[in-house]
C-alpha cells in the first residue's frame, strides 16, 4: 500500500492567525466555551484525523510587563480541552501538552492514564520542557532551568512515568496485589515509589509526542518520540530534518517506522487561487504590525520595538545578542539571510502562522502539495493550523480530505479505536504476566 498521511489539528484560541479572534467569521467569546472545542473535535473526527492537539504556556503573554491587549488570551489548560473533546468523540486521538519542568511524574502519569482510560485508548502527551523563562517566575524559581539540564530532567520524568504505567500488569485488578508492583523509581531528579493508582492504560503507554528542534531536543525526540511536531517552511529542510531524526533513532536501535514526523501546515483555501490570495490579504488586514514585532521580540529576546518597520531584520545583531535562539527563530533568521526581509515582512510571517509553513491555494493544489511532501520524504503527515476556527478547519476537512483519499494517500476509515492504531504503532508490552 502507498504510504499514508497522518493528520493532526492544532487547536488555537480563535485560529492560528494571531488576529483570528477579530475575523468576522469568529465569535470570539466562544474561545473559552465548551462548544468551541466540541465542535472542532467533531470536525476532526469527521475528517478521520489521527489527533486533536493542544499546546500550552505557563505564563501570560506580556509586552514589557503588561499583558498584550491586542491578542487573544492563551488557550485553556490542554488536558481540560482534550477531555471535553474525549466526551463527544469515539476515535480521534487526543494530544495534550504538559511540561516536565514544572510538574511531578506521579501526577502527570496519573493524568494521562486517566485520560487514556476515559477516552478508550486515545491519549497522547506532547512532552515539553518549557523554554520561556517567565514561566519560572510562576513556579517559585528565579530563572529557567538550563537547556541541557531541562532535557535530562525530561528524560528521567518520562522514565518515571513509564515505570508507573507499567506498575500494574496488563489486565491486573486490585484483587491481585501480586500483579501490582511499586517501581520505586530513583534518579538524580525524582524519587517515585508508586504504584500507579489505577490499572495499566489501555494503550499501555499514552503516545509520546515531542516538538524540540534543538540538538538536545532532537536527541530527546529520537529517544522517546512516537510523533514529532516541527516547523518546516520548505521541502529540503524538512527532508534533512526527517533524515536527521531517523539517523539519531538508528543509533539508538529504533526503526524509522516507529515515529511519525508531522510539520505544521497553515492552509488558506479558496475556490480559485485568486480567491485564496484575496482571503489571505483579508487576514493580513486584521493584525497590526506591532503585534508581529512583539512576537518577533518574544521569540528572539531581541528588543525590536524601537526599530523602523521598514528597516531590514537585523539578523546579525539578533544572533549576537542571543546565541541560544530556538529552532523556529533560527529558521526565520536563515530565511532573512537568504533573501532580504524587513521587520514588517518578518512581522507578517509571524502573525500569519508563526514560522510554520503556510499554503495559499485550492484544495486540489494543497492535496498535490501534501502528497508531494509525503512521496519526497519531507514528512509522514501534517499538523494542520487553520487560520480561523472552525470555518477554515471545516473547509480543509470537507474539501482537502476527499482529494487526499482520491489520491490514495489517506484513510477512508479508522483502522482501530486507539491513537496507536491510527499511527500503526505497537503497544508497549509491559511487564510479563505472573498470572497463576
Amino acid at each position, binding site marked *: 500500500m502507498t504510504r499514508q498521511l497522518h493528520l493532526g489539528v492544532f487547536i488555537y484560541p480563535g485560529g492560528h492567525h494571531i488576529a483570528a479572534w*477579530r475575523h468576522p467569521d469568529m465569535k470570539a467569546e466562544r474561545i473559552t466555551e465548551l462548544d468551541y472545542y466540541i465542535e472542532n473535535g467533531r470536525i476532526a473526527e469527521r475528517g478521520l484525523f489521527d489527533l486533536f492537539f493542544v499546546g500550552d504556556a505557563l505564563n501570560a503573554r506580556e509586552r514589557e510587563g503588561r499583558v498584550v491587549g491586542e491578542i487573544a488570551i492563551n488557550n485553556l489548560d490542554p488536558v481540560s480541552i482534550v477531555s471535553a473533546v474525549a*466526551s463527544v468523540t469515539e476515535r480521534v486521538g487526543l494530544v495534550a501538552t504538559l511540561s516536565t519542568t514544572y510538574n511531578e511524574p506521579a501526577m502527570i502519569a*496519573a493524568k494521562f492514564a486517566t485520560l487514556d482510560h476515559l477516552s478508550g485508548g486515545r491519549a497522547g502527551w506532547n512532552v515539553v520542557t518549557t523554554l520561556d523563562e517567565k514561566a519560572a517566575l510562576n513556579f*517559585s524559581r528565579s530563572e529557567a532551568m538550563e537547556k541541557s539540564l531541562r532535557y535530562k530532567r525530561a528524560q528521567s520524568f518520562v522514565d518515571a512515568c513509564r515505570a508507573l504505567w507499567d506498575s500494574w500488569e496488563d489486565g491486573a485488578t*486490585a484483587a491481585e496485589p501480586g500483579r501490582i508492583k511499586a517501581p520505586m523509581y530513583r534518579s538524580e531528579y525524582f524519587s517515585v515509589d508508586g504504584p500507579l493508582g489505577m490499572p495499566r492504560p489501555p494503550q499501555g503507554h499514552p503516545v509520546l509526542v515531542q516538538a524540540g528542534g534543538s540538538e538536545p531536543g532532537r536527541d530527546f525526540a529520537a529517544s522517546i518520540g512516537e510523533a514529532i511536531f516541527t516547523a518546516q517552511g520548505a521541502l529540503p529542510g524538512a527532508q534533512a530534518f526527517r533524515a536527521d531524526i531517523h539517523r539519531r533513532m538508528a543509533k539508538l536501535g529504533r526503526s524509522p517506522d516507529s515515529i511519525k514526523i508531522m510539520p505544521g501546515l497553515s492552509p488558506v483555501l479558496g475556490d480559485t487561487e485568486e480567491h485564496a490570495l484575496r482571503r489571505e490579504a483579508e487576514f493580513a488586514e486584521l493584525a497590526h504590525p506591532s503585534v508581529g514585532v512583539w512576537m518577533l521580540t518574544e521569540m528572539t529576546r531581541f528588543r525590536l520595538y524601537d526599530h523602523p518597520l521598514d528597516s531590514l531584520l537585523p539578523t546579525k545583531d539578533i544572533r549576537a545578542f542571543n546565541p541560544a535562539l530556538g529552532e523556529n527563530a533560527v529558521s526565520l533568521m536563515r530565511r532573512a539571510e537568504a533573501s532580504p526581509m524587513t521587520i514588517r515582512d518578518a512581522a507578517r510571517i509571524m502573525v500569519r502562522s508563526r514560522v510554520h509553513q503556510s499554503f495559499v491555494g485550492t484544495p486540489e493544489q494543497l492535496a498535490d502539495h501534501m502528497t508531494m511532501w509525503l512521496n519526497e520524504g519531507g514528512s509522514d503527515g501534517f499538523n494542520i493550523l487553520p487560520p480561523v476556527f472552525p470555518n477554515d478547519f471545516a473547509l480543509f476537512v470537507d474539501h482537502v480530505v476527499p482529494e487526499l483519499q482520491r489520491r490514495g494517500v489517506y484513510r477512508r476509515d479508522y483502522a482501530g479505536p486507539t491513537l496507536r492504531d491510527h499511527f500503526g504503532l505497537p503497544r508497549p508490552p509491559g511487564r510479563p504476566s505472573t498470572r497463576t
Partner: protein
Amino acid sequence: MLLTASTSGSGASLAPSLDWFRTLVRTAERGGVDALLLDGQWGAGESFVLDPIPLLVALAECSTYIGLAGAIEIDHAEPFNIARSFAAADRLTAGRSALITATGARKPGDFGHALKHTTAERYARAAECIAVARKLWDSWEDEAILLDKPNGRFSNPDRVHPINHAGTHFSVRGPLNAPRPLQGNPPVIMRDASPEGFALARESADLFIAPESSDLAAIRRTIGERPRLLATVPFAGKPQACVAEIVELSARCDGVDIVSATLPADLELFVDEVVPLLRARGLRPSAYAGKTLREHLGLSRPRSQFAA
C-alpha cells in the same frame, strides 16, 4: 438544605469507564443534587483513583446543572497548575466546578519534597497554595476581556494584574494565563477532620463535610461560621429511615452528603425514593434555581481582590 453525593463505594467496573461515571452524573442531576463529589476510590475493593481534571471535564457535556467536584492532592500541588486547570474546568463546565482538597499525603513516597515536610508544614503549604490559587484566579478581573473587534482590543491590560506573591512556600509572579473562572473562584470543599484539617477549613474552605456521626456543633465552633457545613449520611436502601435522619440532621447543619453503599443502584434509589419526600417536606427545591454551583450552594460570587 444543601445536598451533595459522594461517589466512593462499590459497584464500579474493574477499570475506569466514562459511561459508569455518566450514569452517576445523570442520576444525581435527575435528583437535583447540588454537587457530585468525585473524590472517591472506585472499583471493587477501592481499586483505583483518577486524576480529577479529565474526569470532571469529560462529564461536563452530559449534564447541565449539577456541580462537579474533583480532588486535588493539595500537599503536592503547584498553585499555578491548580489555578490554570480549574480556570479551564470552570469555564468548560459553565461554572459548575469545585475543588476538594485532599490533605494527608496519600502517597508521600511519590513526591521527593513531601518526605522533608512536617505535618504542620504540609498544612501551612496547603493553606498558602489555596490563597495563591485564589489570587491567580482574581488576576484577570471580570471586565478584563473586551472582545472589541473594531478597535482590536481583546483585553484591557489595566485590568490584568501580576500577583507578586512572595510567601513562605511559594513565590508566584502571575498573572494567570486564563480568564477568571465563571464562578470567580471555584468553591473549595474539605472533609479532613484532623485538628490541622479543621484549622485549614476555618481559613480556606467554602464547604466542609463532617464525618459520619460527628459532633456537628463542635465542628461548627472549630471551623467558624463561614464554611457551609454538611453531615455525612450513609445510604444503603432504607428510604424512610434515611428521610428521618436527614430531617433531624438538617436542623443542625446546612445539609447532607449522601454516601451510597453500591453505585449506581443506591444512588438511583435515593433519587427515586428519598428526594421526593425531601421535596414534599420543603427541604429541597423541585428544580435547580441557578446555573452555577455557587448559586446552588448559596455562596456569593467573590469580587476580584485586585478590582479597584
